[in-house]
């Protein structure tokens, strides 16, 4: 029974990481309607900045987090200006190719400048954990979970309770209509896309504390984040949280209770996504 409870905790903790990465992507896809294949690369930038701050300047990653978020917001804004805004009306496939090219560019730029090595940061709280009887709750992962929930909550609040949010939703629903009622669509897109990049970087900071920084760190998580927001339903922020939790817990259950389950966890992850999509498509029809 202890193992079962611990398994649930393990799953939930892992899901926090997934939700954190997915939150920014949900914004980019939901509002801007851009399938940003380079999302993981902004995470990578965040992770490397956190590493650099820690290894070179001795600043704790959590302290540098706000600065990194702002810096990557700037990178995102630049990306939007020079590339994304020019393909907003292009076919979805063209957008995919553009962001894919961007991903290749950023990843290999990092590889060229920093090499392929895995880098880690050292913090005093890295291995901290909360002991509840026999249960152990990893500190940084719990923090990631809390942060994901807070960010998704803040996003939800922004979208539904603020002027900017109302504009975002208007733009997301009907670009031309929004333009007609005087919304600066370009500005809304710029903000949404840049915030999405900043959120990726925030996830990256946490990833650098929890795991590592390397040019390819974004890839695994971005792929899973995509699957999660699609499973949640595009633009559904609360859905992101439950989809992450569901996937994280089922992964953990498979890893714990299926012999050789570590090898099957990915299959289960994607099988659930696949099943959800297909089931929903059949339920929705007629």
């Amino acid at each position: 029974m202890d193992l079962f409870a611990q398994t649930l905790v393990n799953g939930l903790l892992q899901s926090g990481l997934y939700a954190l990465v997915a939150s920014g992507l949900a914004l980019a896809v939901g509002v801007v309607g851009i399938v940003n294949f380079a999302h993981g690369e902004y995470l990578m930038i965040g992770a490397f900045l956190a590493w650099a701050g820690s290894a070179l300047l001795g600043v704790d990653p959590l302290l540098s987090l706000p600065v990194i978020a702002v810096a990557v917001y700037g990178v995102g804004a630049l990306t939007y200006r020079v590339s994304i805004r020019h393909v907003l009306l292009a076919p979805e496939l063209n957008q995919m190719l553009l962001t894919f090219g961007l991903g290749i560019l950023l990843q290999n730029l990092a590889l060229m400048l920093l090499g392929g090595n895995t880098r880690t940061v050292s913090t005093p709280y890295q291995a901290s954990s909360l002991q509840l009887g026999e249960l152990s709750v990893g500190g940084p992962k719990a923090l990631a979970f809390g942060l994901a929930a807070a960010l998704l909550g803040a996003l939800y609040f922004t979208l539904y309770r603020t002027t900017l949010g109302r504009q975002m939703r208007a733009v997301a629903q009907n670009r031309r209509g929004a333009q007609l009622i005087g919304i600066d669509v370009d500005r809304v897109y710029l903000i949404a896309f840049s915030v999405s990049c900043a959120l990726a970087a925030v996830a990256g900071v946490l990833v650098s504390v929890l795991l590592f920084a390397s040019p390819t760190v974004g890839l695994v998580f971005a792929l899973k984040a995509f699957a999660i927001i699609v499973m949640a339903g595009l633009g559904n922020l609360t859905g992101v949280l439950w989809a992450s939790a569901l996937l994280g817990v089922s992964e953990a259950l498979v890893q714990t209770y299926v012999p050789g389950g570590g090898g099957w966890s990915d299959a289960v992850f994607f099988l659930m996504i696949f099943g959800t999509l297909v089931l929903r498509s059949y339920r929705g029809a007629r």
Partner: protein
Amino acid sequence: MKTLLMTGVLLALSGAGAVKVGVLLPLSGGGSVSGQAAKNGYQLALDEINRAGGVLGKPLELEFADDGSAPAKAVPEFVKLVTVEKVDFMAGGVSSATSIAISGPAKQYGTFMAWIGAAAVPVEDAFADHPYFFHYHPWSYYNFEAILGYFKYLKTYKKAKNIAIAYEDGPFGSAGIDATVDAFRKAGFNVVLTEKFKTGSGNFGPLVSKAKAAKPDILYWVGYDTDALPLATEIRQQNLQLGLLYGTPPSWPVGFEKNKLADNVAGLSLWLSSSPNKDSRTFVAAYRKKYGTVTDEYFAPLAYVNLKTLAAAINAAGTTDKAKVAAEMAKTNVSTPFGQLTFSPSLKTKYQGFKAGNWLHFQYLGDARVPVFPIKFAQKPMVYGK
């Protein structure tokens, strides 16, 4: 002016007949850390060889090519080195998949290959009947032999009996895992857990929870550098009591030694920069002089040794004739940063360089990797947690 012209002509003439060695390495893609380290080693060796008069009286030439860590890229690059650049010898090779992919053209052209990496058994199969294949890196079964030796020592002196195995589900971790488990059992160990994980996922929670229930003395993990910190973190968080956490990643994270979680983590390497071996100290000094830093990637000295021994064999043969050079190579008997190098048959190939005895086991102790086994190389006593 005239002399300048003359010198130019002479240089050009001498260049025309220079010995050319093609070096195929993963300079980009997944294996690039090892590939770049090897490249540095080759260039260091090249400097020394040419400073000492080159090969056959002329400066040696290296022709680097990037296999991109992908078989589909490796094949054309290999063919280019052999047919366009017309290299006399081939060196390099890190990844197993790319090495297998080029085994076809290598046999077709009868290319002389002085190969540093590619430890997987299918590579041995692919090159079994190649007459000019010199393999420096130990095959994976030699790696395991070394590990088993260490664990047996732990069993005798530390009463380590229960082993938990965590291995990544890719080709690196999964290769021959069943044989590994059998061998541990045969040696009298209890294998209390055998569990796969997904490298880079950072998802070790369930694995460690299970290990906790299995109460192992040694947790043996086969994964990559990306897994080192997340695994160590999870073990600490869930308070899993171990005698030893032992891993065999191809490389370790940069700066891992400074992390408190790295303390007492043990691992396997062919070489450590801190090795007291005389050749190793010479290499480290030369490397520091050329690059200004010290490397911990053993592919750097391995490449260095690779080119030095190849050049020596060519010089000894006095020709670039493959058969004669091979005959000289086979006689190689030199001291290296890894210990003595000679070539002898492995299970399937004729010329195998380093074997089980060249591996050493280290532990992260006080911000550095310190050799702890075999005992004769130990610089500090190992720390065993139970």
